[in-house]
Structure formats: C-alpha cells, structure tokens
C-alpha cells in the first residue's frame, strides 16, 4: 500500500477538525472537531508505525494513549459544558462570558 494514502486521509481529517473548531458555535460541536483532529494524529501515528515496522510499537502504543486521553478529555469537556449550561443556560461559545471582566470596554 502506498504510504501517502493514509497520510492524505489524515490531512483531510485534520483540516475538517480545524474548520469545526473555528466555525462552529455549539461547544459540543467544537469538541467533535477536536476529536476529528485527534483521529488524524492517530491515523498518522499508526501509518508511520506500520511503515517503519517499529519493534517497540511506539506508534500504536502512543495511539492507545491518545485514545485514552481523548476519552478523559471528552468526559471533562462535557462536564464543563454541562456546568456552564446549568449556570448560564447556553452552550453557545460566543455568549460564554463567565470569565470576562465587567469592564464595559470589552463588553460586546
């Protein structure tokens, strides 16, 4: 198999993830974009591991760790999103100003 094919898939996944993080306003959809980018990194790691025939299986072990960390991240991220939703009744990232100053200059 040509190595570039999985690499191109990973590049496409990363680009869509970047678009989701920048363009979406719903916090949960932004988390989905982060997942897409993490999957692109995983695909790169596995492709290079298999291509290199790494004796230590570094790429696949790192992919397992990334999957675990992504699971932890999505759990914490959703906990924060739900907390913000209960406090301010919105998951729209543009309206989340809980940490903002009360300075009238920075208010929209």
């Amino acid at each position, binding site marked *: *198999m*040509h*190595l*570039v*094919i*999985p*690499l*191109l*898939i990973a*590049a*496409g*996944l*990363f*680009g*869509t*993830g*970047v*678009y*989701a993080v*920048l*363009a979406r*306003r*719903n916090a*949960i*959809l932004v988390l*989905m*974009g982060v997942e*897409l980018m993490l*999957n692109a990194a995983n*695909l790169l790691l*596995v*492709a290079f*591991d*298999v291509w290199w*025939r790494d004796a*230590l*299986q570094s790429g*696949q*072990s790192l992919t*397992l*760790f990334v*999957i*675990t*960390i*992504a*699971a*932890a991240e*999505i*759990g*914490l991220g*959703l*906990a*924060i*999103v*739900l*907390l913000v*939703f*209960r*406090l301010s009744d919105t998951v729209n990232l*543009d309206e989340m100003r809980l940490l903002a100053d009360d300075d009238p200059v920075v208010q929209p």
Partner: protein
Amino acid sequence: MIGAVTGLDILMGVFGVVTVGSAVAVVTTPHLVRAALYLVVTLTGVAGCFLLLTAEFLAWVQILIYVGAVVVLLLFGLMLTRAPIGPTEESSRPRRLFAAVVAVGATAVLVAVLVTGFAGEYVDLDGAAAGGAGTTGAALFETWVLPFELVSLLLLGALVGAIALSRSGDTARTGDRDRSGSGSRRAE
C-alpha cells in the same frame, strides 16, 4: 518510483473518501444530532483504515472507545443541553469563510509536507500483522508499562474532576437559589 496500484490502495482510497466525506458532513450539517451520527461513520472509517494497516487491536479499541463511548457521551451532552431537533443557527458568513480559509491552508501545508516527504514510499503489509492483541499487549506491558500506569492515573484524575465539576454545579445552583430567596425576602 511509484509502485503499482493494488486492490488495497483502492480499498484504502474508498475508506478515505467515506471518512473525509462524512467528516465534512460532521462540520457542515446544521442538524446537531446528525453531526454526531456522521461522526460515527467517520470514526468507523478510521477504524477501517487501522484494520487495513493491520493494526487490528487498535481498530477494535477505536470502535469500542470512540464509537461506543465517546459518541454516546456526545449524544448525551446534546440531549442534556436541550439541543433542538431542527437546523440550528449557523455562525456568520465571514467567520465561516475565515475558518474555511484557515482549514484549507492547514490541509494544504500538511499535504505538501507529507507528499514531498513520503511520495513513493511503500508500506509492506505482506509480513506478520503489525498489531494484533498479542504483539500490542506485549509491547504495552513490557516497554510502555510506566506510561500505561500514568494514563490510568490520568483517567482517575479526570473521573474525580468530572464528578467534582458536576457536584460544584449543584452547589452553585442552590447558592443562586439561596441568594435569590434572600433577595426576595429582603424585598418583602
């Protein structure tokens, strides 16, 4: 020198088109629940890519954790935040344009680097599988034991953190109610 295109290449290309196509659907559809369902297709496509690259164990881990757990969590999040069923409000056109420009730029840079670096390289898949449960497990528990244990600690920390966050939300809300209650009492 570029080798012949084999059936595996074509299969991988099909998987890639499905994966990236449904990823684009995830980030462009205005329906929130449909985005989560397209995400299932994308993550399964990535698992198929792992399987084609003979990383068998990771493919099943991907199905179990991502498709089984993460998407369910995301769907629960959508439900608990009272996501509307119909199409939702999109962000403004200039911002979407800006995001598309940045995303296409990032993809173009990645594609340029990867293609100039690795064009013509060939993955030899004829030998033993790169990652069955046996080989991956042996590597994980011989070479990577310490990071593995650290990851378990991290998971424990994330669990405790998530519980603490949801409980602090309770106290914050009752605190609000107390404050509003005392305010109304004062008004009386």
